């Protein structure tokens, strides 16, 4: 049982016009086995939340805390956060020329576990996970994200989530740019990890359609850098019908 606790988180970024505050006091608690959907309009700060938790240097935490089982996440380096059990599936995964997927996965697994995986079981595990995500075996010899289609990049992110077995996974708009078939495959992957582990999932999305495949326990509406409303799955249904207009007028 693990808990990711975000308290009164304020985050700003440097812009040409000076520092700009994007997160204005975020409170969220995510427990193992739970799935929280974070929904909000573009520019509301959803991705900033994801990248701040992962430790991207572009974002400055001005106040607040993030802890994983009481440990101060904000004091950790980017690699240490991953080693502690945090995982971020990125909206725009980065190309790494000359580094093959298989080398990358093995290196990451070794770094997370603190020891190299046993070769034979590892190869089998990778093959199976790739098969379930309907990825061609030749994929393993391609360079990380180089020339991948949008759908391939997202599958590759979920493949990592399956293999690295995080305690807490943040999925940043994993549904964006996917057709229905790809969305189903990716959602099945997330659901498999949920079934086979105690992972807590923070599902960041603009649209409700991924929630047809991945069922959230909690839904949070994110407006202007903070949580405007929290509720159960029924809140997503309401957003589906009404959109975010209801909240927009209430912006400070």
């Amino acid at each position, binding site marked *: 049982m693990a808990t990711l606790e975000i308290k009164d988180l304020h985050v700003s970024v440097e812009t040409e016009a000076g520092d700009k505050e994007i997160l204005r006091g975020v409170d969220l608690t995510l427990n193992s086995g739970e799935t929280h959907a974070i929904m909000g309009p573009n520019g509301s700060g959803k991705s900033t939340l994801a990248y701040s938790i992962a430790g991207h240097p572009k974002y400055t935490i001005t106040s607040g805390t993030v802890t994983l089982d009481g440990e101060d996440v904000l004091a950790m380096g*980017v*690699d240490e956060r991953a080693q502690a059990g945090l995982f971020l599936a990125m909206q725009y995964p980065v190309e790494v020329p000359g*580094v093959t997927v298989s080398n990358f996965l093995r290196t990451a697994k070794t*770094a997370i576990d603190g020891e190299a995986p046993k070769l034979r079981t590892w190869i089998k595990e990778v093959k199976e996970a790739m098969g379930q995500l309907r990825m061609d075996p030749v994929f393993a010899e391609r360079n990380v994200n180089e020339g991948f289609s949008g759908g391939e990049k997202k599958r590759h992110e979920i493949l990592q989530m399956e293999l690295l077995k995080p305690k807490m996974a943040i999925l940043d708009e994993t549904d964006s740019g996917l057709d229905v078939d790809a969305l189903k495959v990716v959602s099945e992957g997330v659901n498999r990890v949920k079934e086979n582990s105690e992972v807590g999932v923070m599902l960041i999305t603009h649209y409700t359609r991924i929630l047809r495949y991945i069922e959230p326990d909690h839904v949070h509406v994110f407006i202007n850098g903070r949580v405007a409303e929290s509720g159960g799955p029924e809140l997503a249904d309401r957003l589906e019908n009404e959109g975010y207009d209801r909240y927009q007028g209430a912006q400070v």
Partner: protein
Amino acid sequence: MTLVTDKPHNDPQTQVATIPDKSRAERLTSFEVEDFAVPTGREEEWRFTPVDRLAGLFSDTATDADAVSFSTKVPEEALQAALAAGVAPRGTVLVPGDRGSVVGSANSPEATYIKVPNDAEYAEPLRVDITGNGAGRRVNSHIVLEAGSHSKALIILDHTGSADFSGNVEIKVGDGADLTVVTLQRWADDANHLAQHDAVVGRDATYKHIAVSLGGSIVRMNSNVRYAGPGGDATLLGVYFADAGQHLEHRSFVDHNAPQCKSLVTYKGALQGETAHTVWVGDVLIRAEAEGIDTYELNRNLVLSDGARADSVPNLEIETGDIAGAGHASSTGRFDDEQLFYLMSRGVSEDEARRMVVRGFFADIIAKIGVAEVVDPLMEAIDAELALDMKGEA
């Protein structure tokens, strides 16, 4: 809208003393020392080079006694009697193209001559190990490499130690032969090396020149190719890694003077540290008679830290439209922090992530080199360079 500034921008380029050549083919070559004045740095072909540090190598001076040790490991039948100036094949391929080369040539009374006999195929690489015995000590070296028709061999020139080293290498690739020449610059930090490597590629022959420059204070290498008949295939590959204070310059000139030939030029380099400087100038000339040829040249540079500078200049001169293909690409990029973040967000440490990115950058050219004797020590050397940097920054 751009505003007109009150002061005209003074581009030092516009004040170059000499008139640029109309064609690359017109550049002077000569065996006479007096034909080449000592460069001032204002000449087009010397404008990137710190010529003030090369006075020793520009002087018309004999080799210092015991300044260098040569160790030649080649099959007995391949090692020929040394060649005096004017004794063929010496001088049939290489005519000096600049001051560094001409003083080296004039002061090399004897050239090492290695000839792979016709039809011979050597599985083991032939080696010439060249060790400089002291910084600033002058060495003039001339090596003639010949691959007999339909022979196959790999020759490695390995430069270590320190010296002011003037190295001319002329390479004659016989018809149908397959020759790979590797030149490793693994000098100590205080060595200077000016090199001219000229090759003539025979009919249907395959020639590969691989330059690996890691050490030395200044390394400046001209690698030139022309063809003796149709069907020749030339590949010039280069890998370099410049640290603070190092100047590594690679120039190539592929003279497509025969029809139905191919050339591929690929140089990749990394730079780290204040004042690290690399230069790549790739000239390709496609003459009117070079119908049906195919050429491509590429240079990529990865800048790992502030203060380093990479110059990259491709020149493609085309005198016939009847060709299969001609292209070039050049780019210099900074180390991508987003790649670092992506790898680290998967638990990989910063050091390991940097290593992965740099190894990845070199991966395709390493695969092209494909020679274990070169690749293994090269990857080790790159890892060592990176380790040095990480330690230095810590």
